[in-house]
């Protein structure tokens, strides 16, 4: 059974991939990458979800067996930060590229080839 | 507006921050209180120069009272105006006559100007487009005839201000000066 969350996650990943594959503008490609990452994070979170259970914070009377899987959430926290870091690097590289090439069109950014 | 003493400003910031802490934690656990106080003291030390110029004077009872009274007044104005917008949105003919008008304010302090701008913005039908000194430029969804057809700039400003800024200024003048 494919839930709507899984579906959404996969959809985001695929939309991201699609963007990377067809968009000519570097910024759009980077945004697509971010969308992909978001999809992956959503997927991770969804995998840890357990129907009818609550967030894995054992306060307000929530017992250990009433909580969803905490591991994917911990992982996603890390994954998000990594995504932010990658994006930051990508943006600076893009800034540099724009400075040197005067364009963000991927078809024109190919001094290194062959 | 002359600056209050550093102590006054610091204490004011400390008090406000601690109150915010109370609200944030919504708890009276002494551990939270102790930590909150220490934290407020630290943050206040770093931020009081930009947070306030008038310090404890802000807590003058009159000001507090006006501020408390302003809340329901403003809320009411906001709700009324929202209903007006609801009418314009839902009306099949979309009855709008927008334009950017010019108002002047009598408020002198920045927090006052901010509050006025926000109040204007939150009241549907008007949005503060820019504030330049005492001049407010407001995007108005239905510019009334008296403003639109004002014979001179002065009249325009007067009529617009009367409609838009005045209702709030009488409170804000007291609260912020």
């Amino acid at each position: 059974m494919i839930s709507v969350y899984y579906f959404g996650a996969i959809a985001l990943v695929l939309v991201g991939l699609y963007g990377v594959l067809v968009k000519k503008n570097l910024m759009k490609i980077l945004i697509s990458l971010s969308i992909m990452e978001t999809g992956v994070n959503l997927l991770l979170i969804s995998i840890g979800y357990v129907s009818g259970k609550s967030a894995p914070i054992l306060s307000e009377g929530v017992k250990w067996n009433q909580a969803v899987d905490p591991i994917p959430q911990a992982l996603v926290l890390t994954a998000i930060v990594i995504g932010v870091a990658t994006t930051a690097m990508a943006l600076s590289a893009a800034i540099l590229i724009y400075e040197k090439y005067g364009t963000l069109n991927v078809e024109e950014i190919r001094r290194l080839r062959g | 507006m002359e600056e209050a003493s550093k102590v006054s400003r610091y204490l004011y910031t400390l008090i406000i921050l601690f109150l915010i802490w109370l609200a944030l934690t919504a708890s009276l656990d002494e551990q939270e209180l102790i930590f909150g106080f220490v934290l407020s003291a630290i943050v206040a030390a770093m931020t009081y120069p930009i947070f306030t110029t008038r310090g404890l004077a802000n807590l003058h009872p009159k000001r507090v009272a006006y501020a408390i009274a302003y809340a329901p007044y403003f809320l009411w104005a906001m709700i009324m105006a929202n209903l007006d917008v609801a009418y314009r949105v839902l009306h099949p003919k979309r009855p709008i006559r927008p334009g950017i008008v010019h108002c002047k304010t009598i408020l002198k302090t920045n927090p006052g100007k901010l509050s006025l701008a926000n109040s204007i913005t939150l009241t549907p039908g008007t949005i503060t487009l820019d504030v330049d000194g005492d001049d407010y430029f407001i995007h108005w969804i239905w510019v009334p005839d008296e403003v639109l057809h004002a014979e001179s700039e002065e009249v325009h400003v007067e009529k617009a201000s009367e409609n838009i800024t005045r209702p709030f200024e009488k409170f804000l003048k007291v609260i912020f000066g």
Partner: protein
Amino acid sequence: MNGQYASLLIALPLISAFFVPLIKGLGRKVVMAYLVLITALQTAIAGWVANEVYSTGKPIIVMAGGWKPPVGINLYIGHFAALFVLIIAVISFFMAFFSFKAVTVEPVDKYAMLFLLLMLGATGMIVTGDIFNLFVFMEITSITAYALTAYNKTGEAAEASMKYIVLGGIGSSFFLIGVALIYGATGTLNMAHLAQLAGAIDPTVAQVGLALIIFGLAVEAELFPLNAWAPDAYQAAPHPITVMFSALVVKAGLYAIARLLYILQNANGWSGVLKLVIIMATLTVVVAEFSALRQKDVKRMIAYSSISQVGMIAFALALGTQAGVDAGVFHMVNHAIVKALLFLTVGYVGVALGGTAIENFRGLGKRMPLTALTLTIGSLAAVGIPLFNIFWSKVRILLAGVEAGYSWSVALILGASVVEAVYYLRLIHTMWFVEGGERVRENFVIGVIALFLAALIIAIGVYPNDIWTIVQKAGQDVFNVANYIKNVPLMGVGA
């Protein structure tokens, strides 16, 4: 001494990198000297760890926070990791020296930090015993690599970095999907625990998960056709960093592929993935060799050569036999040494003569005799001439390949190796038998490092026995998963 102190391998580069902002005001020289000092310390620790592991014959299991696996993340410093962490440290140490000369672009304090963290990332990838932690270290490595690729701030550097980012980003996203699937099927992330549970994973999940994980890693490990970023990155990066890429970073990726392949060997669809890796590895060798053939830029040529060697290593590691893994590990060691030497000398030529185009290598034998000599030794080793180290591992790989039934791959690889011989010999001819310019004074320290590496190449080539013994142990460490599971003190969660 407590084996837990092996965690210093992670702690030292980290704390030292964080320390750099406090000394950046003291100037470039101080920062570079600091880099040398820290890498020397790291080498000492790595040496101690390697000695510990090889003398006791037992891996060191570092348990962060004192939590037993699979509850906590453990580092598994077995024979393989001990060996490679040492290699990483030593090469980094050398490159710290090289950086003195080769890195003049500001801001060097940032360079130093990134350098240390690149070393950290590769180390972490190799020592970690947790699949998600592997992802984290992989990202540390690659993001550092993105930054360092663009470090020179030229248009080409930024372009190369961007390509690396885009491809690396796609790779890591799909890797993470794979991890998510495997986690969803097993409920654990610890590699030893996963190895225990791998057989029980739902076939489809196992297949998709494993394929995605290997896909993601293959981008880092430069397997065709996922390696298009690599030549650009190698070419554009500062010279010492290129050495790090080829000697350390890609090795970490290869290791990760091998480790995960064998950890998950009980998973369904495993042999299919293996076959796919072999196909990709074989194509990597062929395409890279042909691409190197007519390069005008020597650095880029050697980059392609490096990629092809990497393909050969991946081929060996994916054979699924002990002999193959041993050979692959042996080749990893040899390739690390040889490519370190090649990129070092080529980079030095680039620094001294203002570029790495083939024209700069004319008459190098007269212009920079020491550099030319060591570069020649490296080239001959790369070609696989006897009495140089790579000969032994190459023969091992090919024997293992045919033994495992992949004669067609071996034939293709051999065919491509002919091409390799051609372009290296052109380089040698250009250096020694074509007239060049004036004599150039050579740097003493770089000369010593190059000579040391060259001596190592010949020493292993002439007397490979000891290293072969070491490498076999490392190979078993990777291949023998039963032992791996036994060595990790799993606390029996759930079961």
